[in-house]
């Protein structure tokens, strides 16, 4: 589904050139749950922006569903983002003037066809992340974990092929983070392709495969022998809370 061949990205500011990605190659198949790991500043977000068609590489080839991304124009990339990709960001990026429901419906505004059942779809998506009771709340009336779940519902409303999450637990406490991991785990079980970017090994170990970046290159690409199970971790946390 995704093929990266020697992807390079060099930022140019005036005469100063900063190479960030120096030839990244890997493939990801449909239904995979992959964590991209690496220290801060190694270019994980940069790579994710390229994967998500928000940015173009300065070298190499990126094929998504056998479409060569490098040759596409701005408009075609926008359509791809809307149809194939769902983003979850560390900072949630919700519209703070709009309700949870309106936030979730936002991608549909830019869809080729506006579904007649947009409202119901948004309600369903919010219910799926456990926010059935919070649909008309504005972001500032929600906890961080709830806001991130609104963002996940928003990412899924267009039924994208790939879910891209950049440090989705970075701004959350550990319990909310585990809840998000549990949702991802469920999505993966339902067949969704997920790419999770994180610097945190404990988070990465929820995925089935981990790609480690170092110095702008792939340092490690391995399967996780025993992925962590977010649901049982959650149950443990709940147990702890219940016990005196």
């Amino acid at each position, binding site marked *: 589904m995704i093929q990266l061949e020697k992807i390079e990205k060099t930022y140019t500011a005036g005469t100063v050139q900063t190479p960030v990605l120096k030839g990244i190659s890997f493939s990801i198949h449909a239904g995979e749950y992959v964590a991209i790991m690496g220290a801060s500043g190694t270019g994980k977000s940069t790579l994710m*922006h390229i994967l998500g068609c*928000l940015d173009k590489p300065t070298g190499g080839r990126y094929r998504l569903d056998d479409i060569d991304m490098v040759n596409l124009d*701005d*408009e075609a990339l926008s359509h791809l983002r809307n149809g194939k990709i769902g*983003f979850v960001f560390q900072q949630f990026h919700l519209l703070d*003037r*709009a309700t949870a429901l309106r936030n979730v419906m936002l991608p549909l505004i830019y869809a080729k066809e506006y579904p007649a059942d947009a409202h119901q779809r948004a309600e369903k998506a919010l219910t799926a992340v456990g926010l059935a009771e919070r649909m008309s709340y504005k972001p500032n009336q929600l906890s961080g974990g709830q806001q991130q779940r609104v963002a996940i519902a928003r990412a899924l409303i267009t039924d994208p092929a790939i879910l891209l999450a950049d440090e989705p637990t970075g701004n959350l406490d550990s319990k909310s983070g585990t809840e998000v991991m549990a949702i991802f785990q469920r999505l993966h079980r339902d067949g969704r392709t997920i790419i999770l970017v994180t610097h945190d090994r404990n988070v990465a170990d929820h995925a089935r495969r981990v790609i480690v970046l170092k110095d702008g290159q792939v340092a490690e690409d391995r399967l996780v022998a025993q992925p962590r199970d977010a649901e049982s971790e959650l149950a443990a946390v709940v147990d702890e809370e219940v016990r005196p």
Partner: protein
Amino acid sequence: MKLSRNVILSLEILTAHKLRTVLSMIGIVVGVGAVILMVSAGRGAEKQILDRIQDMGTNLVIVSAGRTFIIAGRQRQMDTVRTLLVTDAQAIAKECSSVALTTPAVSKKLPLRWEDQDAITNVVGMRAEGLQVRNFSIAAGRAFDAEESRAAKRVAIVGPTAAVNLFGATDPVGQQIRINKVPFEVIGVTVTKGMDVNGLDQDDLIIVPLETAMRRLLNLDYVHTVYAQALSSTAMGKAEQEIAELLRQRHRLDDKPDDFTIQNQATLLATERETTGSMTLLIGSVAGISLLVGGVGILAVMLMSVRERTEEIGLRRALGALRRDIRNQFLFESGLLAGMGGLVGVTSGVGTAIAVSALGYWPMVISWPAAAVAFAFSVAVGMFFGLYPAVRAARLEPIESLRAE
């Protein structure tokens, strides 16, 4: 299409920024309000002048003796001309097919005396039917009749202004006065007419029978003016022609210039309409400039909005918005701001105009087409000044916008 899906969200965001939204609208509100007020005031003034012209009489063609000149906005007779006669008036009525009837008149400023009160006013001599031709109605007492006129009776009808000047609070009807030392009895008071086209008080006058004025007061055998009533409003031009021809022939002018001046109400109306119309347009355009200034307010607020909502723009782009979707959204929002401002401006402008008119400060005639144009113009101004911020928003790069915190 995408725009319409976004409308509710745009409205929610605009209403969430209440203070800023209101501030950005003020310029437009004032601009649109000013346009409507100015145009209403101009049209009110126009209507007043037209009413005054109509007040002069119906389908009137006015023949004045001698050539008249306009000096400092007033019509003045330059020389004493003795050639316009009562018989001319009779001949015009008889021979000009477009003229229904005529009435000759004389006028002069003369001293008045009542008990120990003195005043000077315009004394007008005319026939009984002249009162109708010139739209004078009687408010108190009575008018004189044809018999009294023929017999040169010393009776007078006073205008309301002259009445107050001479009699103060006393009822004029039945009072004995002297006009240029000649004793008269006041038999009636006319209904207030207000000012004429030239801003002269039409109520500061005394009307006496034509024959009385000519023989007993002025000692004239000629008249100053002949009022002719055309058969219809469309016949006025024809009547003017016929009268001119007849008078030139009767006065044996051959190759000499006219010794009379003819004006007709239709051309007076047309000229006045033209001058007041262009005045209204000028004032309206000046007010329109304040609308443009209002557009600058929109520009400032939209630029602020784009800067503040950089993250939102980045997000929308990440979710699939095209550059033109972003541009259209901000264009729509500035148009919406200006449109709301325009609506408030129309409401307050019309409201103020109605109030000013009702309180009697100035006659206002509200022009709905002008209101519609002002409203449409405000939306256009909003979109025009919103274009630059909108294009700037559309140019933002999604990743950088998302990084901006």
